[in-house]
């Protein structure tokens, strides 16, 4: 379904993405991990067509989407949704309008510039918002919403596109743990219920282990790990992040600990 072959991106003289090759069949939830600058974002941006590739090809249903230009490239983009770290909504427009932007490619320019959406489109946008649990925010400006709500609006925009593939570039990196979980649960639901492929850049290992069917580790533009989340041991993680033995995952983990040692200690001091 998605066949990435030898995809390369060179900025100046440095290869940001270096001959990356992998293949995803069917609606999997794929996580890409690696430290900042490993080329994760560039890879996703090339898949969507936001950044042109230097070399290689990405085959989807028999055609190389890296070779598409102009309206064909935009038609591909409308079929391959992208979710950003900073949500990338239009802050001064209301939530429903932002969701309706998902089908800009399929409506005429005049109609969209004057905001003349059909009733059916508006009803569909509201139904998607309702599915994500934020229908009551519909008439508000996007900028008035919290980060977690804005990211769900961005996911709604992606769903409006009715895409086969959803690319998520650090979708939870600017969210607090509670909202991060809501957003990741939403993405997982879309993946399972709708059967859409989700490829997400993630920066925490516990998130990758919990949500992904498959994890790809990148380092300096190359794929250095490709396997099941259960194979993602601390040793492998050290390799991916290029860290030494001092690397301790728990130090920066945003997961809320399940142990109650601290609680018990607190209770003991209070009871003493």
């Amino acid at each position, binding site marked *: 379904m998605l066949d990435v072959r030898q995809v390369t991106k060179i900025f100046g003289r440095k290869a940001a993405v270096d001959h990356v090759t992998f293949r995803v069949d069917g609606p999997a939830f794929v996580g890409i991990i690696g430290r900042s600058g490993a080329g994760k974002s560039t890879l996703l941006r090339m898949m969507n067509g936001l950044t042109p590739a230097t070399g290689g090809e990405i085959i989807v249903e028999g055609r190389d989407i890296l070779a598409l230009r102009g309206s064909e490239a935009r038609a591909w983009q409308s079929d391959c949704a992208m979710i950003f770290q900073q949500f990338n909504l239009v802050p001064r427009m209301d939530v*429903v309008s932002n969701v309706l932007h998902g089908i800009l490619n399929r409506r005429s320019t005049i109609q969209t510039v*004057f*905001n*003349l*959406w059909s*009733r059916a489109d*508006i*009803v569909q946008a*509201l*139904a998607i918002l*309702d599915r994500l*649990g934020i*229908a*009551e925010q*519909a*008439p508000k400006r996007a900028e008035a919403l919290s980060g977690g709500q804005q990211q769900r609006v961005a996911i709604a925009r992606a769903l409006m596109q009715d895409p086969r593939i959803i690319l998520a570039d650090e979708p939870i990196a600017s969210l607090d743990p509670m909202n991060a979980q809501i957003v990741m649960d939403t993405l997982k639901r879309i993946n399972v219920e709708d059967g859409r492929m989700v490829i997400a850049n993630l920066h925490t290992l516990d998130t990758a282990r919990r949500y992904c069917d498959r994890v790809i580790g990148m380092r300096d533009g190359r794929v250095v790990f490709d396997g099941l989340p259960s194979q993602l041991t601390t040793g492998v993680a050290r390799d991916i992040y290029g860290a030494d033995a001092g690397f301790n995952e728990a130090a920066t983990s945003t997961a809320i600990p399940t142990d109650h040692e601290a609680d018990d200690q607190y209770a003991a001091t209070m009871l003493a």
Partner: protein
Amino acid sequence: MSAPALAHVQTEYLALTRRRRIYGGLLLIVFVAIFVSGFRIADGRNAGGFWQGLHQIGDFPADLVREAIEKAANLPGHMIRAIPALIETLNIALVATLLGCILGLFLSLAATRGLAYWPRMVPVARRLSDIFRAIPEIVIALVLIFVLGGGPVPAVIAIAIHTAGAMGKLFSEVNENVDLKPVEGLASVGANWSQRMWLGVIPQVAPNYMSYSLLRLEINIRASAILGFVGAGGIGYELRNAMTFGQGKFDQAAAIFLLLFATIVLVDQLSASLRHRLTHGAPA
């Protein structure tokens, strides 16, 4: 969300869309109506009439270009002769822009809520820059020429006052979009107002200030040329003498136009590269 609740949100939003469309449509109709009626009134009051005069609109430029081409050999000489006047005009514009922008900077800081040293004086600073902007520079120049006599100084003062008003407004709009976090950071280490402004605000707004100032410099070159028409000296004075009909000096006028055009292009190119350096840093 329950089905009735969703239906409610849906009706509300659809009603909102309908309202917006009705208002938008009405606004468009009103706009077109005002535009058409305004044009008819203006055309009615016109001494000649718009439609009768329309075909003559190119006559003067055509005359000018024809005569300039006929006497093309004279153009370089005319240009060289006009250069001292051009330098005077440029100097007037430069000094006026510099003075006006410095005054405008203080006006803008005093007129921005959240940055002003005396928050109560914000409306005063705003009205002051309104007044500076409202008086046409040609009026100030005429009054000053009457009092101080002709020459570049009245022109500088006139343009600087107008510039200060305009920049006070534009700069304060830039200031309003400034990120207050660095200012708060400086306040947290005990910086005083001047330090907070100079070290926290100016670095953020400098590229914007610069591009507005350079745009203003272009406007002021033209303004200082116009003030030459009323006796402030410079290239405007030469242009007025050359442009008068029936003297056969259109080649001279064309030379001055070309010179002004070249100057504006030069300033534009210069300012573009300057702004680029300011926002992206010097080329390595």
